[in-house]
């Protein structure tokens, strides 16, 4: 069980690094050093071709000039100035970019806190309260049911549920709890948060559950024998030991929510801004350079966030 669940988490961490490190540690006389590089080569090549090169292209294009129908090589900072247009002019309102990031940040905070609370609880239940392995597997599969349909279908399904004439409103009206439909159930911050939490809780459950399964049960017994209460065991033994799981889960959730624009678009009735949507609109109007500049800014924000999170927990040491 632990082994199978390990695999995805490790992939999530850093594949190439690990492969190399392990081979190095266990090197035997009959395995030449270059074998390790050869093993890492396919993924390195894929990354180079489909990630590093496009990223470099995006970075380069973000300095180009553009018209309605063409982009021209140049080294101009105008795109970045346009991204931050009005941000430092000292006017009363927030500029578009800051307002957009602030709104995104709000969702990141809400969704992170909620998925952590729910995800931790589910993982705890699965790891410590379910005794048999088949049952753990079965319940774990139950957690993945929402992922059996496509993302878009899942989001559209919220509409008949939360809409003005949706099931929830009809039920509340029928029970007499409200006398007119609740408008804020759909196309609102609430709807966006709900859909995001629903979508991404599993990304929190998996790594935390994985970390919990690795905890040596005798540690918990020892804590109990030493007179610790259930709460003390949780805060002094379990939480410190599942920190890497929490961190990996948090990285998943934070990065995905920062870049998400489909969920925010559909559940927010497109009335709530997201960086992704801004980029999409610009691309649709062939303004590739400014879209690239926006993408680079977004990437920088995500990287800084991850850097900050990694400083909280030394993930390499803990794993």
């Amino acid at each position, binding site marked *: 069980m632990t082994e199978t669940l390990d695999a995805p988490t490790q992939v999530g961490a850093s594949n190439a690094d690990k492969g190399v490190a392990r081979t190095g540690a266990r090197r035997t006389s009959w395995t030449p050093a270059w074998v390790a590089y050869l093993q890492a080569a396919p993924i390195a090549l894929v990354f180079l071709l489909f990630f590093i090169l496009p990223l470099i292209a995006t970075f380069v294009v973000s300095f180009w000039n553009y018209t309605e129908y063409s982009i021209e090589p140049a080294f101009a900072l105008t795109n970045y100035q346009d991204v931050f247009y009005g941000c430092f002019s000292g006017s009363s309102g927030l500029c578009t970019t800051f*307002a*957009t990031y602030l709104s995104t940040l709000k969702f990141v905070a809400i969704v992170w806190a909620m998925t952590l609370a729910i995800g931790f609880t589910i993982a705890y239940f699965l790891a410590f309260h379910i005794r048999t392995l088949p049952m753990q597997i079965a319940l774990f599969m139950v957690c993945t049911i929402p992922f059996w349909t496509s993302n878009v279908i899942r989001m559209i399904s919220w509409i*008949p549920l939360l809409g003005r*004439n949706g099931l929830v409103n009809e039920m509340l009206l029928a029970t007499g709890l409200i006398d007119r439909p609740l408008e804020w159930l759909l*196309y609102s911050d609430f709807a966006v948060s709900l859909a995001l939490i629903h979508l991404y809780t599993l990304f929190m459950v998996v790594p935390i559950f994985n970390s919990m399964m690795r905890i040596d049960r005798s540690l918990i017994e020892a804590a109990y024998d030493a007179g610790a209460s259930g709460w003390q065991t949780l805060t002094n033994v379990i939480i410190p030991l599942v920190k890497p799981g929490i961190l990996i889960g948090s990285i998943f959730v934070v990065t995905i929510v920062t870049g998400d624009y489909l969920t925010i678009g559909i559940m927010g009735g*497109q009335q709530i*801004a997201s960086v992704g949507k801004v980029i999409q609109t610009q691309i649709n*109007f*062939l*303004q590739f350079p400014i879209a690239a500049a926006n993408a680079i800014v977004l990437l920088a924000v995500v990287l800084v966030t991850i850097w900050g999170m990694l400083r909280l927990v030394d993930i390499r040491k803990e794993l």
Partner: protein
Amino acid sequence: MTILKETRGGVTRRSILKASAAIAGAGVITKVTGFPAIAQEKVTLRYLSTAVNQSPAIAEKAGEDLGIKVEYIAVTTDDVAKRVITQPNSFDLVDTEYFALPKLLPSGNIMGLDAKKIKLADKIASVIREGTVAGKKIGLDGTAPAEVLYLPDEEATEFAEEPTDFLTLIPTTYNADTLGIRPDLIDGPVESWASLLDPKFKGKAAILNIPSIGIMDAAMAIEARGDMKYGDKGNMTREEIDATIAALIEAKRAGQFRAFWTDFNESVNLMASGEVVIQSMWSPAVTAVRTQGIECKYQPLKEGYRAWASGFGLPVAIEDREKDAAYEFINWFLSGWAGAHLAKQGYYTAVLETTKEAMEPYEWAYWFEGKPAEKDIHAPDGKLLEKAGATRDGGSYDERMGRVACWNAVMDENIYMIRKWNEFIAA
């Protein structure tokens, strides 16, 4: 996404007929190119456009009549323009909106069509050629087709000032757009674009989140409300854009809008579910709501319509054989059957005379003359659209197209407009 029309299930009488039609078709090509060995194969036209115009029935019929294989490439409106500019070799025929032309033409990727090779070029509707309906001038705000129809020569990258023998696009479909409403959920009549921003519909209105079209609908509403007068709604100045966006932000903050939509289906869902009772809408979307048995009206408004038109263009990179086939296909397209097929979905067509010949008289009377339907009106796929006795919203062709106020457009200040639009979304 590519849609390939192919007959399956081995050799049938039908497929033999088709094959012989293909050989007959190829025979015609043989004479043109003089390479019999190559010409044995059916010529394939890669037809780039949005999915709405890509009826499988048209491709099938063209295959039967001409022996040309039409291979559809379906993308969104914005992606059609993007593809013409970024991948000009990936199609042989493009069906795009006239308002994209000020972007497409300077790229040098599309070329003019020779009017001498288009048999019915003179018969193309006057609304497209001259901007007139029944002899009367209509509103030409925005990118009116008449202003971007002619080129000085085949490979020009600027428009001609007056009629010439080279056309940018040969019209396929066009129409007049207005607001869609749910009459069952609205008290009292809706007569003006101003209703879109009327606080009466607070939390129940929607507009398009396609900036170039959404801002024009907003401008129609703001002008109708009497707030300001635009020089040209399709080509606003920076001040006009600022004022329009400010009014939109005010309405958004006051909770006027339930949602914005970008995809045709989203507008159908919003309307059908009752989330929205008044919104900018496209004609086939209104039909889609109605076929679900839900009341929905394409409400004519006193300020007039916002029109659009779409047409065939040729890529510069086209090969001779495909070019001949493209002309042949366009001539066939204008000759009646295809036009009638599209007209039965509510679109207007390039050559009205041939469309009329290809339709049943009662169909023509309903769709084009604004008369009550003598019999039940069916869509091309056989679905019931209207019961006998119904009339088309907005009336006849002359009444609808004659009251066009502006056309879908790309503004000179497009880049600035999009920045302001993003500000509106983030507000």
